[in-house]
């Protein structure tokens, strides 16, 4: 492969990482090793990419990744009270996973539904105009 082509090839790295993340719930060591060979990058380099992006994990995540926005537009609409309720209900802080590997909680920055806040995302699904009770109901539906 000439150098130019091999550079082009790198535009698929992020997508590969997404696929592993979706399949395993995190990106396992063995796949990092494979990627480093395939893309001719050092493992440290691949780790560096993974650690830069908040949607990639190197440790197993819960079956449900709960993302709750607490930035200004949602915050003005009391997302902090939703967050408080969810944190105490799951007994988690942000970036933590429950012991039964069911839930991972992430306090995130803007999910792009600012006119309908507070906003919560469960895996790929968006829930808008939530409040404390609605958030707990959504979590219960996942149980």
């Amino acid at each position, binding site marked *: 492969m000439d150098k*130019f082509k091999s*550079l*082009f090839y*790198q*535009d*698929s*790295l*992020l*997508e590969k*990482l*997404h696929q592993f993340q979706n399949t395993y719930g995190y990106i396992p060591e063995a796949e990092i090793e494979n990627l480093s060979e395939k*893309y001719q990058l050092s493992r440290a380099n691949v780790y*560096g*990419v993974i650690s*830069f*992006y*908040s*949607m*990639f994990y190197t440790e197993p995540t819960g079956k449900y990744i709960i*993302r709750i926005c*607490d*930035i*200004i*537009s949602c*915050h*003005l*609409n009391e997302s902090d009270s939703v967050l408080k309720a969810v944190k105490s209900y799951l007994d988690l802080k942000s970036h933590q996973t429950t012991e039964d590997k069911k839930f991972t909680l992430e306090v*995130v*920055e*803007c*999910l*792009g*539904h*600012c*006119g*309908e*806040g507070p906003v919560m*995302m469960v895996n*790929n699904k*968006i829930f808008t105009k939530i409040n404390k009770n609605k958030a707990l109901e959504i979590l219960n539906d996942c149980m």
Partner: protein
Amino acid sequence: MVQEKLYLKGDKLLDISNYEFKSIKNALQIGREKTIQKIKDSDLKGRGGAGFPTGIKWEMAADVEGKEKFVVCNADEGEPGTFKDRYLLEERPLKVLEGIMLAAYAVGADKAYIYIRGEYSRAIEVFSEIIKAAREKNILNDNLFNSGFKLELKLVRGAGAYVCGDETSLINSIEGKRGRSRIKPPYPIEKGLFKQPTVVNNVESLCCTAEVMNPDSEDFSELGTEGSRGTKLLCLSGDLNRPGLYEVEFGQITLIEIIYDLGGGIKGSEDLRFVIPGGISTAVIKADDLDFPYSYQAFEKRGSSLGSGAVIAVSKKHDLLDLMLNVSRFYMDETCGTCFPCREGNRQINKILKAFKEEDGKIDTELISDIGNTIRLAARCGLGQSSLNFITSVIENYGKELKFGGKIYA
């Protein structure tokens, strides 16, 4: 009651079989040079936040030689308060596609990328379908309408990094790297993606180019006022009765009308304190200074910017220190860490504000202002440079009122 001007907003455009591609057909007919001239004449400014003239960008890119040339559609909409690009991607993706085709045709690129933020799973789904349909219909990867013009388009999804909204960070991200900004020059137009000439345009900007080139909406570029042409999508949020997406003509509506007519005024019993006019990287506008027509120039005159079009109304109900901490935490988390004034500065600001809250001690507003200036001067990307606009503007406007201890801001 103020009327919306509907060009960018409208019925869903999802069915490629019923979409006529009038703008790109028009461009193919009149040729590259005239297309660029039309965009230049329209005085269209980038809608992502920086406001660079789109036509000039295209003209410069068309003149550059490279082994390859790329067009990148920046759909990494991450500025808090902004959701217009998500709307366009989910509901009017054919306009976005047409805009990408126009840009590629005009600058002479045969490869394009669309980089959609990872959190926009619905938009990613919709746009992937559009690309698939366009390939099946030979709109992509083929001799487009027998013109000899061929375009490959690839979707890359981001993975959670605000800073990738900066064009050089976004380019690094497409290349499978950490999304850190690059030193400019060279600008992407000379050396961008894979070191080749690259044009990066925002989703809404590209949709605007499709309006400019559409024979059915010839009046689009005549709308607005000098220096602010066309329409703008506004994302209204915060303490409003009717938040949501609105389209307005530049110069024909005041910020008062935006807040009280379109937005339905402030909810609850409290009054408006200020408006954040273009996302949290823009300086606040006080409630008693809203009576001016919405335009690039009017905000510039007030030391602010219309940014991404995220208009956030903030009432007197909220504790300003709490809001400053909220915004400060955002930048502390989202700085890419390359330029240390941005990385360390935002951390220090958070520390200062936290200490003030927890210890109820003194706050050194002069130090905050110094750090703000340092970041503004020393950060190399626009996102870093503008990271303290909100906080410093709140202190400038309300520092005294809030009885901050220590040195009072002049």
